């Protein structure tokens, strides 16, 4: 068997420990919490966070001990209660504008429509902001005394292109905002 050079085992151990910690961070709860978890309350919390039902599978993986397996019915009933809170239409707008994800868990079709419209506003605003950051960075480069004239020429052309992109992105943002307002009025939210 090949031996690792001196010093490597410590590195390997550190990497293993890091991997273990990373994996532990992916689990939904500490294994010690499994036997004392109120699964109904956990379901309510997961519902309020908009988690899909396969969250239960991850809880089960986090609680491998057969004496502490999740009470599925209690969790599902709790999640339904939590979703009743999460799925209020005005929360769809908040979630979309904040750029949060949506797992398609709400029965009310208004939620999905509002979320999609609000998310489009968020994404278009992000696009505008991203282009403006690029333009600002290139302008800083242009203003930098150490930038060569040749490079300045390229950067100015890039800025012109980016400004054109920004105008289109602002137009898309405006369209998205108008569409969201219209939908909110239509749905009374």
């Amino acid at each position: 068997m090949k031996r690792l050079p001196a010093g490597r085992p410590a590195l390997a151990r550190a990497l293993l420990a890091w991997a273990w910690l990373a994996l532990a961070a992916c689990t939904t709860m500490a294994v010690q919490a499994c036997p004392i978890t109120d699964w109904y309350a956990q379901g309510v919390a997961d519902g309020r966070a908009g988690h899909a039902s396969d969250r239960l599978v991850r809880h089960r993986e986090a609680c491998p001990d057969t004496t502490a397996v999740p009470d599925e019915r209690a969790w599902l009933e709790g999640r339904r209660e939590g979703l009743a809170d999460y799925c209020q239409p005005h929360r769809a707008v908040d979630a979309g504008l904040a750029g949060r994800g949506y797992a398609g868990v709400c029965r009310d079709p208004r939620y999905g429509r509002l979320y999609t419209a609000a998310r489009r506003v968020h994404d278009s605003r992000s696009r505008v902001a991203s282009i403006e950051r690029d333009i600002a960075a290139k302008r800083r480069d242009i203003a930098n005394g150490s930038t060569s004239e040749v490079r300045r020429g390229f950067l100015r052309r890039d800025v012109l292109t980016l400004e054109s992109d920004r105008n289109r992105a602002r137009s898309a943002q405006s369209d998205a905002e108008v569409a969201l307002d219209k939908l909110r009025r239509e749905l009374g939210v």
Partner: protein
Amino acid sequence: MPTRPRAVAPLPLAAAILALAIAAFAAAQTPDVAAIQAREARNADTRTLAALERFRQALAVRYPGDPRLTMLEFGESEATALVLTSPASPPEFVIWRGDRWIGTENRKLEPWARPDVAAANAFPLSSVRAPPFRAWQDAWRRVPGQATDFFMKYAMGYDPAAGRVVVRATVGSMTTGRIAEQRFDPSSGAPVAVAAAAPPPAPKWAPRRSDDLRRDVGIAITALRREVPATRMGAVRVTAREIAFTLADRSTWRFDATHTLTPGPRYDGSFLCEQGWAESDVDWGTLEVLPRNGVLAAGLGDDAEQHARFVIDRPRDCGGLAIEVFYDNYRAPQPWVRFDPRGRLLRSSQ
């Protein structure tokens, strides 16, 4: 006035002759069919006892020196045991399926007595022998009407009601459709009577007479096993009005609301894992709770529960067995929820 005997009309006479012929044919056929069923049942017994022997050997290799058991349970495709590895520690739970050990995650086997009592009355592996099982099977099958019965599983352990180690055999009656538990002595195969025994736990496949066949899967499987004792399952589709079986050999059977099982055309499609699966792989008792769990998981209306139907099968690439619940009150694409064979949620369409 004396009445004159009426002349026998030619048509009723022909009908009578035909009826006699049919009766004679049926009389000639019935014993043959019963004999085939009885022979298939005996073959299933032989396979089950062979499976027990393989499990015994595997246990002997894994735990040398005649280990002591607090509980043993086995059928044709799977065997489980609680093995005492030391007097102080709890017994080790092991599962043997086919020809290998499998994991015990989320599985459970519990002794009938309190753990300390069960440990004090643990029995050696060497006391688990096939001949007494065979003797009990022989005696059982000699009783008229029982030759075709289906032995679903055997469990062996200390029975507090009997005050001794017994075997409890779960028997599906092929003549009544009922499922019952029978006790016998593992050293002789002689029946064990328990006068004051608590009623046995309700079998998971407790037959119920109802128009909703989703509650009658146990009866349907019992009826199927009367006709086809050994062929592995391919797919089972359960609706309120019909239970359809596709077996691994592509034969199909339909169990209807009159509790009649009829053969269907051979399945020629490609959606079948030909390795099949055993019905003991599925916890059929969970079917009752899955419609509600599925409604909650998929966020459906409460009224969807009564429209649930089940499909239990393996994918054509012979992946994991799953129970899928569909809701027929929705238009296609219908919402679905997938559970593992023990009824644990895996994922849903919404």
